[in-house]
């Protein structure tokens, strides 16, 4: 997958768990919790969706690497390539 495809998939999962977010208004460096207002339950639901889509384990210790869309895309790309 290209980074663009990973980003599109990530945003789709993000909108899936937070349908009240406007995809066009999400910036790559927006912090999921501080800027987009996800709470810990939303975040866990996002991790679950990514886990299902990419079949990656995403342990809790990796959560900080999903803090923003750009960080998450880099993390997912690295894990998929590993």
């Amino acid at each position, binding site marked *: 997958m290209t980074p663009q495809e990973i980003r599109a998939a990530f945003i789709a999962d993000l909108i899936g768990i937070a349908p009240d977010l406007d995809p066009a208004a999400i910036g790559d460096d*927006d912090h999921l919790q501080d*800027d987009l207002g996800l*709470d810990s339950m939303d975040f866990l639901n996002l991790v679950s969706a990514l886990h299902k889509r990419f079949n990656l384990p995403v342990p809790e210790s990796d959560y900080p690497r999903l803090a923003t869309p750009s960080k998450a895309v880099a993390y997912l790309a690295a894990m998929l390539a590993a």
Partner: protein
Amino acid sequence: MSLFTMPSLGADMEAGKLIEWLVKPGDHVAKGDIVAVVETQKGAIEIEIFEAGQISALLAEPGQTLPVGAPLAQIGTAEDAAPAVAPPPRGQPPQAAKPPAPPVAPAGGSGGPRPASPAARARAAELGLALETVAGSGPGGAVLLADVGAGAQGHPAPPMAPAGDGGPKGRPGLDLTGMRHAIAAAMSRSKRKIPHYYLSHEIALQAAQGWLAATNAARPPDRRLLMGALLVRATVRALARVPEMNGRFDEGGFVPSATVNCGLAIALRGGGLIAPAIPDAQDLDSDAIMHRMRDLVARTRAGRLRNSEITQGTITVSSLGETGVDALFGVIYPPQVALVGFGAPRVRPLILDGTLTPGLAVTATLAADHRVSDGRRGAMFLAEIDRLLQEPDNT
């Protein structure tokens, strides 16, 4: 015959707008079936019926705004159908032999109502689009705002609501002014009528945190637990020792509840707050509580709460999650008599066995109704929550 009327979804509600009927005349309904969707200041709410019978007539049209108590439908109940006069016509099975009404499909399931977020409903109504004509891309096929936009290609773009105060990036659509009004009415009533007292207690969470980390390490994400579920579980269990914190204060005074219908304060990104309840939480273990919390949060976001969930709470837990301040002092949600608040768990200096140690801790607070309980009992409640959180595997 009986009338099905616009239900009151909280003391602050005066009217609701009928969005859609999920039944038609002739349909058989069972107690607890979802029969209609009503738009309120709390978003779109699925309305359950509380008696079994057959729908005789629908008395209100979708789109109508009706006051609480207004007749919505006429229901023929079992007594009406009892063949007191004549046997049923030949070839028609007697009433009692009729098959039970088919179970209502779970939200999002095929055959059920088309789930949709409140924003999507509002936009579809603006555009005059039927939700059934829009392909949904949300959870369980729910129609999202973006889907309505896609379904409305060729329509002029509707004017966007003003962006507001630059807060979190929410979408317009939900009636936030109406919700603010509803919150104001309920909280004003609470502060006017309920003599609150407040207690605060710091609870060490190393035991809970250690158990949680070990439990979650072996689990895939969709089975992981959050600290919030352990806090709710401990609160629910602690109520067994202080039953006077769990119930409702009505005209006749306090009525304790045999079940714990645990309300969860869920903040909406655009502003506002809804506190739907997990019914019968006293029977649920941590996994089940977590599952129900996930479900409630997801349905709150997608606008698919049921009226029983927002009207039958017997206590409320408000938890700030991982990002927030140290403590919150809540306002009781009437007619309940207690609210337990949890601040953000944080690493703090703790004294353990005489030694200063950094450790995770949370400040638990209690707002309780002095007409029903006193500080001594409230203190026992918070101390019991503390004790239970020190043995998290005992669930």
